[in-house]
């Protein structure tokens, strides 16, 4: 027995020490995250606003003032913080005389690689969408990104019909993307050949957003017109 090597016994792990270390580290990390979040929050909000305003101005060049609103079942109210459940955010663009020029709103749907988000411009006099701006897209370069540049595709949105049913409850016709070169009606979008999935995402995004927004917005359009004049 005396010739045997001594056995090294690993000391038992102190459970309390493990818990204490994890608690300390997570508290330190939590504090760091919250501090940096507080510091960067104003800059992030400003950046998002600038990007959005740039898109709205690109869509509505005559806009001299842009006001954010939320449309909900209760009516139209000035936007504050994030939109409430069921509410849809939209942007009213007024010209230099304070007259409502157009409305812009965002819609999104799953494309080929990720969500495709588009900002669309709406005018009530024609009950139509008159243009789009892609605000988020990670589609295949050279194929899916043609939704930004393809003139024939963009022509679909020069006067896309989004008129409502007489009871103002939904769109009269569902906006939908059809196969390349098969467009027949004003509410159809002619897909880009080879980029059908991305084209369909644009159509679906616009339809979903317009189906929710317009029935809540159109009955209260006067409110938006007056608020613009008052500001």
């Amino acid at each position: 027995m005396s010739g045997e090597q001594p056995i090294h016994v690993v000391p038992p792990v102190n459970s309390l020490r493990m818990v204490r270390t994890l608690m300390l580290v997570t508290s330190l990390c939590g504090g760091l995250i919250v501090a940096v979040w507080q510091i960067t929050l104003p800059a992030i909000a400003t950046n998002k606003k600038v990007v959005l305003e740039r898109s709205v101005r690109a869509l509505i060049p005559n806009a001299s003032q842009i006001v954010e609103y939320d449309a909900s079942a209760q009516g139209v109210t000035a936007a504050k913080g994030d939109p409430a459940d069921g509410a849809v955010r939209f942007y009213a663009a007024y010209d230099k005389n304070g007259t409502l020029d157009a409305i812009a709103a965002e819609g999104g749907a799953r494309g080929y690689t990720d969500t495709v988000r588009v900002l669309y411009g709406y005018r009530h006099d024609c009950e139509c969408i008159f243009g789009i701006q892609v605000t988020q897209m990670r589609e295949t370069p050279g194929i899916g990104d043609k939704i930004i540049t393809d003139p024939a595709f963009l022509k679909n949105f020069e006067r896309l019909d989004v008129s409502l049913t007489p009871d103002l409850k939904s769109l009269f016709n569902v906006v939908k993307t059809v196969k390349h070169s098969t467009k027949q009606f004003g509410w159809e979008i002619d897909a880009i050949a080879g980029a059908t999935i991305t084209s369909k995402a644009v159509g679906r995004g616009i339809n979903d957003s317009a189906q929710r927004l317009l029935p809540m917005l159109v009955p209260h359009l006067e409110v938006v017109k007056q608020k613009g004049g008052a500001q």
Partner: protein
Amino acid sequence: MSSQPLQASNMEELLEGIWKQNPVFVMALGMCPALAVTVSAFNALGMGLATTFVLICSCTLISMLRRFIPREVRIATYIVIIATFVTLVDYIIQAVSLALYEALGAFIQLIVVNCIILGRVESHAAKNPPLSAMVNALGMGIGFTIGLLALGGVREIFGAGQLFGISLFGQNFQPWVVMVLPPGGFFVLGLWLLFFAWLAKRKEARHGA
């Protein structure tokens, strides 16, 4: 390694990550962001700097805490610390440039699981003093950024005819679309690896002669 005193000078430590143990071209680590975000030099630089920031901060803090972290909970602790700095870099990039944030997409969050960082922490920072850990992390970060820039630069030049957004060949240039697609990433990486293998072989031949 913990029993061996730190032999290498800080400069050697720095150069190790940049050249001898370059994470992209020598160790072939962090391939997911290296292939996915390097469609342009600007994206590559942004991703490289973000990863370097996380590497330096995580390695330094973990090195400072190395004596207090029990072995049994070390991985959980490391991941919490790495995830914290990734969250910080996520907010900072959003505050600096939303365009870069959109371009890098989910890959910023995926820095948490970048094997270069956990690898550095486990094999170096957890066993060395803060200064050495920081210098080593800086070297690895610079090496990773150089690797990404080498990929992103070539892909942007051929895939878009420009570098950092500056047009190089005029309007008549027909972009090689394949370069900005995933196969282009593998193709350019393969060519760079071939180039470094050729360099190594040439050096070997010279030493042999």
